[in-house]
């Protein structure tokens, strides 16, 4: 806040001057970012529980390189070093949690550099990027290392029937449907942080209850996946049921941690609904008819591109000019 301190002519007190309002809510950018980091802790724990301690190396690498890249670029551009705001830590954490277990730390580092440099800093840094930086990094890894990024390690306590591949791949390529219970608990193949619905929900609910994440986006995605996924399930015997859509793959992780990213999601309430429903539509289409088993990453990136447009066309109606 711009403010001035003036000293009374002679003996008076020093008084602070600034324009109203003179009160402020407890939220700061930093606090929000560190709340998100805290919310991701259960996912980090579940990755270690199911895939072993080596996953910590991968996650730490991603965080380190994300933060390092941001600091280096800010230094290079002679901008203030803003890594303390925690946003680069989040990007690193998110990227680390969406690569396969035992993924190469070298590749992870490359992905983290790409996330921050291309996904965020070229747009002007925090607040200006169009696409979710962690997903940009993940998309880069998918293109650069297609084999490594789809090589899934079996979780330590896996049930035989589901240990061959991720549940989505099992369904797509082998027509094997994974039951819900292992999906909820998380002892299935998949990316580090996304396999356990319990861990994801724990962090996600924390974000929703504290008001850090806006509830509308995850709500819209859930409604969307039930409506669109349900419609396909009714008419296409090969399509999975909506519950499977919700608990398999990265749906929950994407809905609670990726799609809720402020910068790359709409600012208006109606916009959030359109955005969330759009993600689910694209997601269901990719999962059921696309060549890839999973589609959360591409569906979010796809809808990220429309956010400026959505913002523009969902401006609320002015008070007094009819219902918003």
């Amino acid at each position, binding site marked *: *806040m*711009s*403010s001035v301190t*003036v000293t*009374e002519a002679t003996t*008076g*007190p*020093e*008084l*602070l*001057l*600034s*324009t*109203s*309002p*003179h*009160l*402020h*809510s407890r*939220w*700061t*950018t*930093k*606090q*929000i970012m560190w709340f998100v980091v805290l919310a991701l802790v259960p996912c980090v724990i579940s990755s270690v529980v199911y895939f072993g301690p080596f996953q910590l190396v991968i996650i730490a690498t991603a965080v380190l390189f994300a933060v390092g890249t941001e600091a280096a670029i800010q230094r290079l551009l002679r901008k203030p070093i*803003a890594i303390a*705001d925690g946003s680069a830590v989040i990007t690193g954490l998110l990227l680390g949690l969406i690569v396969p277990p035992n993924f190469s730390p070298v590749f992870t580092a490359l992905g983290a550099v790409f996330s921050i440099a291309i996904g965020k800093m070229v747009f002007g*840094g*925090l*607040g*200006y990027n169009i696409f979710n930086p962690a997903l940009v990094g993940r998309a880069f890894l998918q293109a650069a290392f297609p084999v490594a990024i789809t090589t899934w390690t079996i979780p330590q306590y896996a049930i035989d029937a589901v240990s061959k591949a991720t549940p989505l791949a099992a369904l797509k390529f082998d027509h094997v449907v994974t039951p819900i219970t292992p999906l909820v608990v998380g002892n299935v193949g998949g990316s580090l942080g996304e396999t356990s619905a319990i861990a994801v929900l724990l962090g996600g609910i924390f974000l929703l209850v504290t008001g850090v994440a*806006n509830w509308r986006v995850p709500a819209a995605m859930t409604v969307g996946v039930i409506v669109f996924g349900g419609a396909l399930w009714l008419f296409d015997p090969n399509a999975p049921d909506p519950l499977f859509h919700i608990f398999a793959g990265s749906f929950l992780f994407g809905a609670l941690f990726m799609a809720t990213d*402020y*910068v790359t*999601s*709409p*600012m*208006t*309430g109606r916009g*959030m609904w359109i955005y969330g429903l759009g993600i689910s539509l694209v997601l269901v289409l990719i999962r059921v008819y696309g060549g890839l088993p999973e589609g959360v990453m591409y569906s979010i990136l796809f809808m990220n591109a429309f956010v400026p447009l959505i913002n523009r066309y969902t*401006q*609320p*109606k*002015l*008070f*007094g*000019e009819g219902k*918003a």
Partner: protein
Amino acid sequence: MKFRTFPGGVHPAEEKELSEHCAFEIMPAPSMVVLPLSQHLGKQARPTVEKRAFVARGQVVAEADGFISSPVHAPIAGMVKSIGRESHSSGYAKEALVIVPAELKEGESLPEPQRMAAINPETASVEQIRTRVRDAGIVGQGGAAFPTYVKLTPPEGKRIDTVILNGCECEPYLTRDDRFMLERPDAIVSGLRLIMRALDVATGVIGIENNKPQAIAAMEKAVAGKPGVSVCPLKTKYPQGAEKMLIKAVRGREVPPGKLPLDVGVVIQNIGTAVAIHDAIASGEPSITAALTVTGRGIRTPKNLLVPVGTPLSDVIAFCGGLTEDAAKVIVGGPMMGVAQHNLQAPVMKATSGIVVLTRDEVAAHEETACLRCGRCVDVCPLHLNPSRLARLAQRGMIEEAEQLNITVCMECGSCAFTCPAHIPLVQWLRLGKQRVIHLQRNRK
């Protein structure tokens, strides 16, 4: 029970407990009063006395200059020391009369105290009410200080069906209206009925936020058996007391952008204004006393006070034990929309509702970061603007775009800046943008 309200808004800490239990105290007359000629919206008053003239308590010292203007009365007897530019709580120096106690020489005497004739409130005619409200120099106590007489004289053809008394007191800290409702409920109802009679309206509603249960009870008791008047408890949420928000909550009507409450058939008056109207009619008292809350952790003894208009802020603060060691910001008005003061010689005015002193810890500045596009400001804006976008446009000088996105509708309630986690001074940018749009519109003509 579900309380009525409006969509949007914020919940700052209420902080009413600092002063809500303090009954009004009458502050003794100060040794000097500074009477700005502009204590109201509209044209400043024209002085009717010369420098060095002796004046009586209650005497008119400046008369209304035009329809939208208001006279000024002397709150103390004494001598006009000077007429010139003095400190003003808006931050700008403004024309004011300074009155000091008279030093009488042999043979000189002060004029007799002046008071207008009392009128029975039960039988006062429309003409008597309007004339008295004008002559008593009553202005709106809600903050904008609009001359009350003008509001009681609506243009021909406007149909008004409801008078709402604003007892929300949605600004944190302030407890003046709360105290009025506890201490003078009958005067409030009498004032409301006088307003209703002046406007030929059969329905009067007193809107009160539900964080004042005692005030709600007191007012409900006072309206019992009085036809047409009722109490409407409202949800506690800032800015519930903004005119548009209050009408939305009480009557469900939305005032269109650029329109006034009377365009949707409503006139709003503040609780304090109702008391002032009753006193002007029933005891002939002109507007020479300001009721205000002096509070905050930066003041030693928070109080609710009745203060002679024109008393310097520093005198009022001294009467409340002075500032604490860690006092850092003195605000005239509430902390959401009030004005930070740099000169405590500025006087209390007719519509001054409070002095709030915040401490160093409470005003600690937070670092401003880039906008996160979190949408919180859009969520809370009670007028459904997009503050972040408007601030950005104002910052970049894109004034015509800001105009198209209705920047001038903003009432500067501060909900957006209150809630912004990036600590962007949104209201500051919006104010700048509004001024530049108004400038642009003036040049177009």
